[in-house]
């Protein structure tokens, strides 16, 4: 029964089934075929259904005799033929995306119909919790649906990024421009204090893991890690439904408190219809480049105070011709004196600018994406298969992402009344990225981006070798202790991830009567992600010895659900009740192992290292057993009331607290129908309200403290020896240490409450519509670590605490400003998202909590540890905290009289709020006779970003921003005492204005505004305006295709990220703030040196035959 539409349910009028068996079960369902033979004999009505916009015939339209269960579906040519019983008076025609029409039969034998698109989307059927399909108009909560074709048109390999700007209430942020890197999505803000804030993904009814499996923090060591939702092939997506509220999600329980993204794949959605066989080919070819580079200055080379030196900063002597006094025309070769580089000793190189030295570090990336979908079926059976492959070479040399997907699924209605369906999908994803962490003392400057965006202006990176001929190690313009040459790093350090993922599900349904149905579904999502992080010898990283780290992660999730559905009309009343059971098991097994000190230079394999040690691992398994019920009462199709409840038992909680119940109530009324309003001024008005609660468990093994074996204090650099320990003369000792996370043996479930109100209105002859939602969500009793002062012996206590509120509004606006009878149409779809997040309370007496990821960074990395992400009562989520300079009571900066620079405040302070104020997305679509032009513009207002990249661009003096530098400046402020932090007073007790001048160089290097400065000066408002996407598509007219084998053909050209403007970033840095060091974690608004974003052009061809 595969959750058919209400009205399709009634068509089940099975008479004959022809079945052709093939080799395997999968291939069996691939070639199922059927047709209908009618047995009744009263009246036969025939007709042809065509579409209003292009005149094409519509196959698969449901035709039902009103008030009966008699019905049929139009064939490939849009024709139908139906036996109407004697008492049949009206035929009801319905089709997804079209307005439902009722036609009186009267004395006709032929009834043709032109169907109009359903702009309001009211007839739309969406997939809701537990895979239950519901008409959108009946829902008391907000659901957004995106059609798969919208994703395929965009030709974006990452399904989530393709959704950017298209769904109100949803915030989607890409982590970097590296192929395959992660994307973060949050719905209605972050409610979990420190846990997962991303929605639950459900693919074909089975949860789909979206972990970002990374061994390193992404900071000290690290790379552009992916998130596993990337395994989802947009080509195979039939539809995406986003359940935003907790009410929508109550039936998914625990993990649904952050919303649910329900994906139905093509192979998983094969639905019996009279479609026949259809083959769709979709192919695209795209090129991409780095979205923007700063405007570099080419006047000064490296050094300080207008003198040349072999330094990082371009604050040195001007180039000949750039300034009248310039005299330096050659410099000692950078490799002078280096072992193995004797050829360069005593030589010199010209001192001049290399304006394109940064630009030439990057190339044009190429993305090739091919997919083939074959679907076929009859009334009773259907099958669909998708094969696809995408290959994406990034703009950073050697970076690559590939994904191969084979999926097949089908459904059949057996003669004995059972309905059987299933789908299976295999995906292989491969990612190669460069090292992109930030440098840290002693062992991690192997990042390809350590210097890439702020190369010394006189560095002839491309004209010089980058590899030592003897050691094969990196040779760069600065010394060994600094950074690797990016060209060397591309080739000789990196990150590789290969994931094999299989998802499969089968379901079985049985219609006991036309109002009672049983169904059972079981599915599995499992993958194995094998990662390799390698740094070859001669890098500044890994002590120059070479290091390869393997990380192997296995994931398996099994979900089983059993549903009993009751659906019956009682006069004007419709009662729909569902009772169900749900069992879920999740297992994660991970192990890392590290080999150090390479034997042969370029073999990145454990066997090629001199020492191999275990490098951490974990195993966890959790189970949930749940029962739930859902009652929906409808009156005359305009009033609905819904009640749901669920009880879960979770293995992760203490026995006495492991059972928890949570309910939801929703209601909606369509006033226009209720009051019979039919007016051009008010076409449709619906009000809805919902209240819900969601309970949540936690990760396994968190209720009792454990010892960690051979665990050492893992900062970078390491202050202690590692374990096990063997002294030079002596035997080996293993070590153990009590975990520094204190545990609470009495954990109880987390709770989230949410209320939601919505108005959906269409007016002006349906040319203007607004879907408005207000929500308020409160999460409390969260299970999260509270930071403890380490003097307790622990750094954190995992317990229930806190209260977080998210309050917001969402608008979806549909406007049709212009429409002609000749078929020209201009549609505007706008989204507006505003979420206000407030931490109402933390644990008793706790004023601040540092978010875990950043906490590790803050304490564990010598250089990177300055900015952290914190929670404070009464404040928004994840505020940035970092160092600031001292001010007096009047807000004047205190200036150190000895050098004219500022005085660092010993206490760090809040320096930024990364949460955007609002997000606006506007999609303009113009269509005319098969040509569609659409443009997505989005605007993210507010949200701060700490940017080490911008800091470095300024501090290294490479951009035009500080090209004018032959002047002295005075930092506005008053003199202060660095010992007492008090302003100095003159003889009359007045503060003394600073008059000490500093050089421009010092303004960006010192206790000033960039390098070595307080963090506060590198926080920028990340407001950004963006032309996200422009696509022009052309559907070849049917008439042209008549003599070809193609049923449909379209061609489109898409540009992504064509333009952006971030007005609050320093001029000439051209910085795109939409990247984040911490990938898809809760730590947002901190960037050290990530791969910049991309700009892409794609040509896409779609053929159906």
């Amino acid at each position, binding site marked *: 029964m595969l959750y058919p539409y209400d009205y399709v349910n009634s068509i089940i009028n099975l008479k004959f089934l022809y079945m052709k068996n093939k080799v395997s079960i999968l291939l069996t369902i691939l070639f199922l075929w059927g047709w209908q033979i009618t047995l009744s004999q009263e009246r036969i009505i025939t007709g042809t259904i065509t579409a209003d916009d292009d005149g094409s015939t519509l196959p698969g339209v449901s035709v039902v005799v009103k008030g009966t269960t008699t019905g049929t579906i139009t064939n490939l040519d849009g024709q139908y033929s139906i036996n109407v019983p004697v008492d049949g008076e009206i035929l009801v025609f319905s089709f997804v995306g079209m307005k439902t029409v009722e036609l009186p039969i009267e004395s006709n034998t032929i009834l043709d119909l032109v169907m109009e698109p359903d702009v309001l989307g009211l007839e739309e059927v969406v997939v809701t919790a537990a895979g239950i399909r519901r008409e959108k108009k009946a829902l008391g909560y907000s659901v957004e649906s995106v059609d798969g074709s919208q994703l395929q048109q965009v030709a974006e390999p990452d399904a989530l990024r393709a959704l950017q700007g298209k769904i109100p209430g949803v915030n989607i942020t890409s982590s970097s421009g590296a192929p395959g890197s992660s994307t973060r999505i949050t719905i209605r803000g972050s409610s979990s204090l420190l846990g997962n804030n991303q929605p639950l993904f459900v693919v074909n009814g089975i949860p789909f893991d979206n972990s970002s499996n990374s061994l390193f923090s992404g900071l000290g060591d690290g790379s552009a890690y992916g998130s596993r939702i990337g395994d989802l092939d947009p080509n195979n997506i039939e539809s995406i439904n986003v359940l935003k509220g907790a009410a929508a999600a109550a039936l998914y329980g625990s993990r649904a408190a952050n919303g649910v993204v329900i994906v139905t794949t093509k192979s998983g959605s094969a639905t019996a219809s009279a479609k026949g066989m259809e083959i769709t080919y979709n192919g695209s070819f795209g090129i991409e480049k780095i979205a923007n580079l700063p405007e570099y200055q080419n006047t000064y080379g490296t050094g*300080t105070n207008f*003198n040349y*030196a072999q*330094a990082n900063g371009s604050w040195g002597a001007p180039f000949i011709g750039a300034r009248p006094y310039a005299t330096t025309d050659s410099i000692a070769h950078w490799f002078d004196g280096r072992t193995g580089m004797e050829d360069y000793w005593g030589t010199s190189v010209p001192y001049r600018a290399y304006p394109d030295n940064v630009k030439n570090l990057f190339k044009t990336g190429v993305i090739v994406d091919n997919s083939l979908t074959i679907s076929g079926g009859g009334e009773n059976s259907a099958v669909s298969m998708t094969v696809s492959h995408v290959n994406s070479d990034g703009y950073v040399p050697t970076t690559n992402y590939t994904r191969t997907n084979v999926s097949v699924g089908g459904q059949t209605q057996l003669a004995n009344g059972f309905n059987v369906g299933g789908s299976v999908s295999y995906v292989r994803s491969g990612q190669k990225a460069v090292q992109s962490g930030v440098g840290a*003392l002693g062992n991690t400057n192997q990042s390809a981006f350590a210097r890439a965006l702020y190369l010394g202006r006189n560095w002839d990176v491309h004209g010089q070798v980058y590899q030592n001929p003897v050691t094969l190690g990196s040779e760069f313009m600065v*010394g*060994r*202790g600094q950074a690797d040459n990016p060209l060397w790093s591309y080739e000789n350090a990196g990150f590789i991830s290969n994931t094999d993922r299989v998802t499969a599900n089968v379901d079985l349904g*049985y219609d*006991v009567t036309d109002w009672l149905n*049983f169904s059972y579904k079981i599915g599995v999502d499992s993958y194995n992600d094998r990662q390799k992080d390698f740094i070859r010898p001669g890098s500044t990283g890994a*002590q120059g010895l070479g290091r390869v780290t393997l990380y192997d992660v296995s994931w398996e999730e099994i979900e089983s659900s059993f549903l009993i559905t009751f659906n019956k009309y009682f006069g004007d009343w419709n009662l729909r009740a569902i009772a169900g059971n749900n069992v879920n098991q999740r297992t994660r097994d991970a192990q890392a192992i590290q*080999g*150090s000190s390479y034997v042969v230079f370029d073999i990145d394999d454990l066997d090629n290292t*001199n*020492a191999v040690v275990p490098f951490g*691992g974990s195993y966890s*398994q959790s189970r949930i057993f749940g029962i739930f019920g859902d009652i929906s009462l409808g009156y005359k199709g305009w009033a609905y009331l819904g009640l749901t409840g669920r009880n879960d038992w979770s*293995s992760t909680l203490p*026995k006495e607290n492991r059972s928890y119940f949570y309910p939801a109530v929703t209601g909606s009324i369509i006033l226009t129908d209720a009051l019979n309003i039919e007016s051009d001024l008010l076409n449709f008005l619906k009000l809805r309200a919902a209240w819900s609660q969601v309970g949540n468990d936690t990760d396994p*093994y968190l209720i009792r403290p454990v*010892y960690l074996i051979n665990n050492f204090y893992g900062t970078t*650099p*390491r*202050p*202690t*020896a*590692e*374990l*096990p*320990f*063997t*002294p*030079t003369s*002596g035997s080996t*000792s*293993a*070590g*153990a*240490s*009590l975990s520094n996370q204190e545990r609470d043996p009495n954990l109880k479930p987390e709770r989230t409450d949410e209320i939601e109100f919505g108005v959906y209105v269409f007016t002006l002859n349906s040319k203007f519509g607004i879907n408005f939602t207000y929500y308020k969500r409160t999460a409390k009793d969260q299970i999260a670590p509270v930071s*403890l*002062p*380490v*003097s*307790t*012996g*622990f750094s954190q*206590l995992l317990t229930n605490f806190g209260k977080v509120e998210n309050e917001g509004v969402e608008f979806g606006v549909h406007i049709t400003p212009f429409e002609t009878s000749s078929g020209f149409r201009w549609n505007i779809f706008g989204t507006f998202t505003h979420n206000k997040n407030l931490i109402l309370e933390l644990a008793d007496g706790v004023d601040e909590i540092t978010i875990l990821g950043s906490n590790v960074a*803050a*304490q564990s990395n010598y250089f990177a540890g*300055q900015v952290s992400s914190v929670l404070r009562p009464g404040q928004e989520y994840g505020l940035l905290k970092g160092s600031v300079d001292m001010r007096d009571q009047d807000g004047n900066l205190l200036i150190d009289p000895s*050098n004219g620079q500022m005085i660092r405040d*010993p*206490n760090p302070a809040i320096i930024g709020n990364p949460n955007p104020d609002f997000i606006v997305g506007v999609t303009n679509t113009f269509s005319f006779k098969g040509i569609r032009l659409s443009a997505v513009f989005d605007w993210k207002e507010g949200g701060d970003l700490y940017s080490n990249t911008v800091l470095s661009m300024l501090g290294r003096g490479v951009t035009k921003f500080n090209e004018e530098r032959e002047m002295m400046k005075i930092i506005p402020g008053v003199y202060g005492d*660095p*010992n007492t932090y008090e302003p100095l007073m003159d003889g009359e007790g007045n503060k003394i204005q600073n008059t000490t001048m500093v050089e421009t160089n010092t303004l960006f*290097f*010192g*206790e000033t505004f960039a390098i070595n400065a307080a963090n506060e000066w590198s926080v920028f408002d990340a407001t950004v305006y963006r032309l996200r996407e422009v696509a022009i598509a052309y559907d070849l007219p049917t008439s042209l295709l008549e003599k070809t084998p193609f049923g449909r053909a379209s061609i489109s050209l898409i540009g992504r990220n064509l333009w952006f403007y971030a007005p609050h970033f320093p001029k000439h840095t051209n910085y795109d703030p939409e990247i984040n060091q911490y990938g898809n974690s809760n730590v947002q608004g901190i960037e050290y040196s990530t791969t910049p974003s991309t700009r892409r052009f794609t040509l896409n061809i779609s053929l159906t035959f």
Partner: protein
Amino acid sequence: MMKKMKIKYFISVLLSLVLVLFSGCEDFLDINDDPNNPTDVPISQLLSTVEVDMAGSMGASVGGLSGYTSAMVHQMFQRGNTHQFYDLQGTDFEVQTPWNIMYSRLLTDVRQIISLATEDEGNEDWHYVGISQIMKAYTFSVLVDIWADVPFSEANLGSEVRMPVYDNGENIYPQLFTLIDEGITNIQKTSNLSPGTDDIIYQGDLSLWIKFARTLKLKMYNQIRLVQDVSTEINALLADESQLIGSGDDFEFPYGASLAPMNRNPAYQQEYTPGAGYYYINPYFYEILTGQNTFFPVEGNPYLGITDPRVPYYFYNQLAPGQAAENPVAYRNGDFLSIYMFSYNIDPNEGFDQSSSQTIAGLYPIGGRYDDGNGGISNFNGAGDTPQRMLTYFSRLYTQAELALAGVTSQNDSLLLAQAIQASFDKVNEVASAAGAPSIVQTDIDTYISSIMSLYASADNAGKLQHIMTQKWIASFGFGIDAYNDYRRTGYPVLHDGNTDNLDITVRTRDFPVSFPWKTADLQVNKNAPAQKNITTFNVFWDAN
């Protein structure tokens, strides 16, 4: 009819399936024990970890206390860092890391050992208890010496006390003496289990633990001698010197040779990563050891014209004779290359990368390379396993010399000083011989000792104290904690002052930090914690200056 039967059958199968699942639910859900991490471990494994953590938290890498304390007493320091002019922050890695290791690991594991070792009444592991108590006392004495007031009475109680108060160091110290005495008593009891090779420092030799405990008391009594009459306690300890640390009994953590897991001295790992030299040697320290004073007032160097034979063991010049440095140079003296303290953000040459050219710490302090005068970039080309010294025989002798000079004891201060210097040279030779480097010949040692002793003989009492403390300071290189304590207690050695030297690229804008700032993050999550201190005035209770 058939159809109805089928339905009934179908329903009953499904319902019973649900019931079976549900009744098995309890067992089904009892899977919440972590299969990979134990809830119980042998105390021997905890002891090893405690010793590793103790050496690391007090050691000479940037994450150990010897890093910052050595910088404060002008032995070595970093470029591009505000600690050059005494600006220490509670967010500094160097401040947070030792604090974190000591409280969240070392002291917690010590607590676990004591609790596990005494849980089986009548069958206690007293030896583990005793050793743990002594290490706990030592750790807290260091915490007080560095941070003045620290959590003690309410520390390490987990979620029982989430916000421990900061106790006054003056109230902590007496309890530490008691703790050491209890430790000695427990070590002398019959014990169920006794440590062996899991005791990495003393390999289970309990008599050495007792010697260490008594020497620690001597050091701590000396530490508080300006604020308390300690002559009775000290003379009692000195009544039997064989019960104190003697030659070869040093409390030090031996490092190993393994690269993976990294068992080498962490400071060595930091400095000898190819071309990644990090700590600069303070030119002031270098000039005192080489008898020069090119940039500071003459009274700064009591040993003008005297060259210390330990120089090639202390410092390693990466530059070969006459070789050019990679960048413009701030301070070069022969092949010794460094930068000036107090020149951060003032001297442009301070900021240049010289990691392949700068002089770095050598064999003796961190297990680096013996300087044979030929240069060469650091490239894991040193010993790497030189122990982290903590409490040594020579430091005991310097302490005795100081006590004798101060009249606390009636011992011969001059003789003790000469013995102390000899013991410090012996220690250098011990390290050299372990690393296969040449030894300092005794005639050179004698020459050096006699020149120091003749200066000592002619000095007044203040001058004599200066010589004892300066010699102790030189000998301490690689373990900065005691030197930082001694300087605050005695005012010696005389340190370089960026405002009174003859350089215009050095400015000292802050006063000397008389204790370290508390870890900022801990203050913020602890309502019972004091406000952050002014580190130029908040002194330790024993600091009578």
